[in-house]
């Protein structure tokens, strides 16, 4: 899922300063699961903004809407009947959702209430961690399910490096060294011979280095 963090309240309130009729958008997908921008978080932020503005003597009208998804046109278009009734939209969806709503409604600003952070997993209730960077050329078969692109701070392919000490990365004493995890997995699965294979330089053109990516399936187009 896409994991995000809410922006600091001061930043949010500064963005909303000129407006008094606000549409506050949430999303029922990833940001709901990572407890950042679902209907609950939308309700809390709306309440917080109302209380702040009431205290300042500049009350605000907020409509709270949580779409099923903000990254699909059929859901975004459901905002048609009322989006233009509001001076501005603020979104608690990920960066994709914020942009997509903005693309559909020219002439209306869509402000971000959250910082989209990474693609990750729920390690335990309330703890999320990064697992994928979407490099476009998966190597998990070679590294036995542990991604060196994401989990190694240097994204190296023939690790570990000299910064690996006692199974931890030099970047953070609590961060496991991805290559130590990979070597341990090779041992566990009696595949250490595979570890000896030198990996050639990775072609990063499939990653962000090749510019924004697009996928088209002609058979699905209507």
């Amino acid at each position: 899922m896409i994991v995000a963090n809410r922006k600091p309240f001061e930043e949010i309130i500064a963005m909303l300063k000129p407006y008094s009729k606000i549409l506050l958008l949430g999303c029922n997908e990833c940001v709901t699961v990572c407890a950042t921008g679902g209907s609950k978080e939308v309700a809390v932020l709306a309440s917080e903004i109302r209380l702040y503005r009431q205290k300042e003597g500049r009350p605000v009208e907020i409509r709270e809407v949580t779409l099923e998804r903000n990254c699909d046109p059929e859901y975004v278009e459901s905002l048609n009947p009322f989006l233009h009734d509001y001076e501005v939209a603020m979104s608690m969806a990920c960066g994709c959702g914020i942009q997509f709503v903005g693309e559909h409604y020219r002439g209306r600003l869509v402000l971000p209430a959250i910082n989209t952070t990474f693609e990750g997993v729920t390690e335990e209730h309330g703890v999320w961690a990064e697992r994928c960077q979407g490099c476009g050329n998966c190597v998990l078969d070679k590294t036995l399910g542990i991604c060196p692109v994401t989990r190694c701070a240097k994204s190296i392919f023939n690790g570990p490096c000299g910064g690996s000490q006692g199974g931890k990365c030099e970047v953070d004493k609590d961060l496991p060294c991805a290559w130590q995890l990979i070597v341990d997995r090779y041992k566990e699965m009696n595949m250490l011979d595979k570890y000896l294979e030198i990996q050639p330089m990775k072609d990063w053109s499939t990653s962000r280095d090749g510019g924004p990516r697009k996928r088209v399936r002609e058979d699905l187009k209507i």
Partner: protein
Amino acid sequence: MRLSYPTNVKIIKVPCTGRVDVILILKAFENGADGAYLVGCLEGDCHYLVGNLRARKRVEYLKHILDECGIGGERVAMYNLSSAEGQHFAEVAREMTEKIRNLGPNPAKQTAVRKI
């Protein structure tokens, strides 16, 4: 016991303090409450095991939210009492009322009243 406690304390019954979400208390402040406190069972005595422990964490989070929006986190509190502690319940009601009275009215409400 016929104990008395301040009449401005309005009691809202819930099956367990674990039911109380942050938004419920925020709504109370939006509706003009000057303070709010949760009274849960003693820690370790929760019928649902961890309801009162979760409530305490939520109150801590709520304090942070109320500080952020300028209402003041000190306006919320969590107490743990057993149902046999009527005397203590009345004391808590007095203590909280006194604390909120010293803090003054909810600032969001103050502005609304002034505007009228």
